């Protein structure tokens, strides 16, 4: 997965993150460029999802323009290589690449997950049979290295885990005291994390647990309304604080390592960040309010 060439190098940025706190910056984010345009030179509009395969491909859910966008690594730079528009995907809000290279995208209108081939062809809707009569309404999802699909079911107040073949493997219930769970993440050890935006805390479940449990230490003092979460290869958690404009970096224990970036318009700053992808030492942020994908290098 590691490819040192996969680095977005768009020049030195003038806007450094002056607003980030000076203390507790064991892990920092350094602005490393931004993506503004598609292949025809048109701007992104309110993108909410982003994912990278860590080698050569970046997929963006360009939500406001109702399409997916592909970017590929060409001569050390990410270049736009096409758009995907599907009638089954009128409002893409989240996107993930599975281990086979297939694109999975969440349609924000139907709350269903759509399978899209590498060339943009529609491959069907993901069938989510939870084994009960309850309706599954997808708020978010994640895919692990084995192709298991983790689905955040808002209607059922649970996380459903499906095997790569589609069968239901596991259910993880929300705790009794919960605000609103906006997103989930899975680390390389199979631990499941979720962000409760209202109570501003991270919930977690080990592989043998059936209920999410709050991690120690809430985030109320450091965030306004965190809505997206992702784990990197080192087990660190990155949360997008949509309400406050910033990124929180946590240990997998829930301990806050640092808060990075701040609300703003210039590169390096964020306005209502909505989607995250952490790959190969880089953090891609769907910076919805700034109509761009903001790229950061993760600096230890």
């Amino acid at each position: 997965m590691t490819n040192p060439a996969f680095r977005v190098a768009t020049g030195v940025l003038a806007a450094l993150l002056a607003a980030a706190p000076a203390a507790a910056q064991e892990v920092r984010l350094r602005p490393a460029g931004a993506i503004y345009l598609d292949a025809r030179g048109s701007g992104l509009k309110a993108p909410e999802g982003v994912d990278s395969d860590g080698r050569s491909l970046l997929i963006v859910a360009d939500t406001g323009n109702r399409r997916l966008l592909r970017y590929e690594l060409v001569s050390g730079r990410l270049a736009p290589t096409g758009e995907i528009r599907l009638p089954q995907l009128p409002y893409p809000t989240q996107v993930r690449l599975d281990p086979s290279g297939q694109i999975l995208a969440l349609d924000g209108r139907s709350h269903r997950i759509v399978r899209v081939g590498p060339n943009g062809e529609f491959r069907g809707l993901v069938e989510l049979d939870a084994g009960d009569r309850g309706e599954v309404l997808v708020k978010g999802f994640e895919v692990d290295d084995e192709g298991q699909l983790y689905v955040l079911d808002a209607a059922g107040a649970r996380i459903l885990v499906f095997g790569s073949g589609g069968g239901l493997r596991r259910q993880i219930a929300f705790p009794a005291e919960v605000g609103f769970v906006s997103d989930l993440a899975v680390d390389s050890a199979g631990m499941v994390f979720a962000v409760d935006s209202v109570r501003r805390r991270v919930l977690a479940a080990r592989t043998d647990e059936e209920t999410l449990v709050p991690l120690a230490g809430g985030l109320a003092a450091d965030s306004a309304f965190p809505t997206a979460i992702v784990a990197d290869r080192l087990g660190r958690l990155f949360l997008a604080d949509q309400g406050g404009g910033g990124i929180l970096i946590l240990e997998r224990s829930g301990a806050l390592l640092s808060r990075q970036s701040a609300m703003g318009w210039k590169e390096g700053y964020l306005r209502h960040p909505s989607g995250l992808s952490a790959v190969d030492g880089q953090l891609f942020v769907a910076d919805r309010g700034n109509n761009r994908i903001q790229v950061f290098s993760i600096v230890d």
Partner: protein
Amino acid sequence: MTPARLILALAGLLLPAVAFAQNPYRLKPGATGKVCLDCHTELEDQMALPSVHTPVRSGQCSDCHNPHASSHGQLLAADGDSICTDCHAGLIPAGSLSVHQAAIEGGCVACHDPHAAANANVLTTTGSELCFSCHESMAQQLEGQEFQHSPVRQSCTTCHDPHASTASDFLLKKPTGGLCADCHDPARASFAQSHMGYPVGSSRCTSCHDPHGSNTSGILLAEVHEPITRKMCNQCHAPSSASDALALKRTGQALCRGCHSEVVNQALARDRIHWPVADASGCLTCHNPHASTEKGLLVEPTTLLCGECHAAALDQLASAATRHGPVADGDCSACHEPHAADNVFLLATADVATLCGECHDWGAHSSHPLGPEVVDQRNPNLTVDCLSCHRPHGSAHKALAHLDPGGPLCVQCHEQMSR
């Protein structure tokens, strides 16, 4: 020394300490309240009242007052709060779910006369009138109401503990179901008949009824869900004869969709849904399915309701120098659609300037370029709209500006003007 003599000797050593505790000011024998009354003759009339505070009656004025000097008013021996709790400990039990604010703040004398009164428990006034002296809005609310809960006019303490409650919020002596059942016996046929045979004896009565009074028969809350008025509880609940009669027929928005299909279907067809509509609680997150004091059967006033989840947004407003009018008025839905929309933040229109223009004639107050053709100098993918300079809810700066309009706000774009 024998053990008996040893005990006597130790007792002899302790006696002066005991005597000091009983008479800290070393008053001469008989020099108690009588001495005080020699000067404070105004207290003699009070001594004749039916209810006299025990230390006053027994002449122990120095239980509360220092006869020489004090750092507290009225020559009190300590601050008013601790003086009362020295004797009346336990009025606020540990683990209380609700405590009377006056009791917390040491305002015992708001209700009690420290010397004597014409009413039991040295209360300054009797019954509800005492409570209404502070809870004026409650008194005003009750004025003119057609149907009043009779205990409200008699004594609030029928239902409320005046100091604290370990059983319920609102100082209630018991949780609502059990409390109401003390007078309204669920076993009576009339009770069952008026509740369509549903076993609501232990339910939360205030889900439908205003415990103080209302203008609706049965002291129902002002806004009543139509199935309730038509006595059709089984539209949502199992039949009253079922073993689980109070069970809901469906969960989440599916329950409400049966009647409110147009609203729910429209919401689910929009690009963005307000997620409580679709989550496990569904419509009941914001709406009371039985009755409410709020329009639209909202469970509480809009600002409080929205603030239940969007607390940080309201926290920012608390310290804001300027607030957007609709926010200050608690009218979040002036800009946001409560159920669903096709725009971010569930805004009613896609174009911010159009939305703002419904109230603000921005073209008249500003000559700043604005619109889809004007690129924001800070970001090539943004064009200038109202939110480029203004915050939508509140701000520490004038005119709801993001930054100080006299400095950093303008030079964000107009860098050449920076000093």
